[in-house]
């Protein structure tokens, strides 16, 4: 029985941070939506919105997928992935705005 509580304890502790993360995700989504609604555009606003998106995806990877608690290459798999579309999108938007 004592081993079982050992397993349960960290899982219970997972709920609260995930709820907080969920709240952060919702708030950032609303911010992104408001920026769109306000019709804001341009390179820096776009990159800010992209930054929010990458951060949100990172939160999902770390907390919801649970990669935070993993060792080695799999810990960084989402980060590495996000770097690919993140940098390419940045590059493309810099092209279209910088001319």
């Amino acid at each position, binding site marked *: 029985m004592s081993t079982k509580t050992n397993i349960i304890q960290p899982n219970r502790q*997972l709920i609260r941070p995930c709820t907080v993360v969920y709240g952060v995700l919702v708030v950032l989504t609303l911010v992104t*939506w408001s*920026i769109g609604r306000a019709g804001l555009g341009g390179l820096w606003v776009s990159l800010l919105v992209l930054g929010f*998106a990458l951060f*949100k995806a990172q939160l999902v990877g770390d907390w*919801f*997928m649970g990669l935070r608690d993993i060792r080695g290459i799999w810990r960084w798999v989402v980060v590495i992935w996000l770097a690919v579309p993140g940098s390419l*999108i940045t590059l493309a938007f810099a092209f279209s705005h910088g001319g």
Partner: protein
Amino acid sequence: MRGILMDTVVRHEQARPGYPPGDLAIWIFILAELLVFAIFFAAYAFARSGQAELFNHYQATLNRDTALFNTLALLTSSYFVVRGVVAAREGNNALCARWLWAAVAMGGLFLVIKASEYADHFAAGVSLSSNTFYMFYLSLTFFHFMHVILGMVILAAVAVKAGRDGYSPDDHTGVETGASYWHMVDMVWLILFPLVYVMR
């Protein structure tokens, strides 16, 4: 004191698994899927840089409000899935099944909203051949749409097994497998939403 702290840190480090939650095969699949989406996103961005005005013009015709609700639906479903995984780890199969079905329902809500958006577009005569923006918008969102369906099928299969008391604290890889896939579907939308609906 410091010694004890170091000791727990080290032990914690050793206890950390080297593999992500769920079956390794689903992670190979997730990686491949993520690569597809990454290429799709980059293609969108670069195609846009050539015709930014056209993209900005037609982006304004999209319904950002429904997209907001869809984002919230997916975020909420992902949160439900997290709760389902915790329940499974505690050995509470019935609770796990309830959370997972709630997540599936949220996925269903996403599909309904997205389908109504498509209906509006098609009623307006929009098609893949209308222009490059709509080509990308329809392709990207529809490709994601199909992933939501697949994710719901996987979650439903896991929920059914949980409902039959099929998992235990020692053996619940199936739940984590389905959860990992679903979070991927959510995560991809978190990039897709700002890229296609907001960034200009």
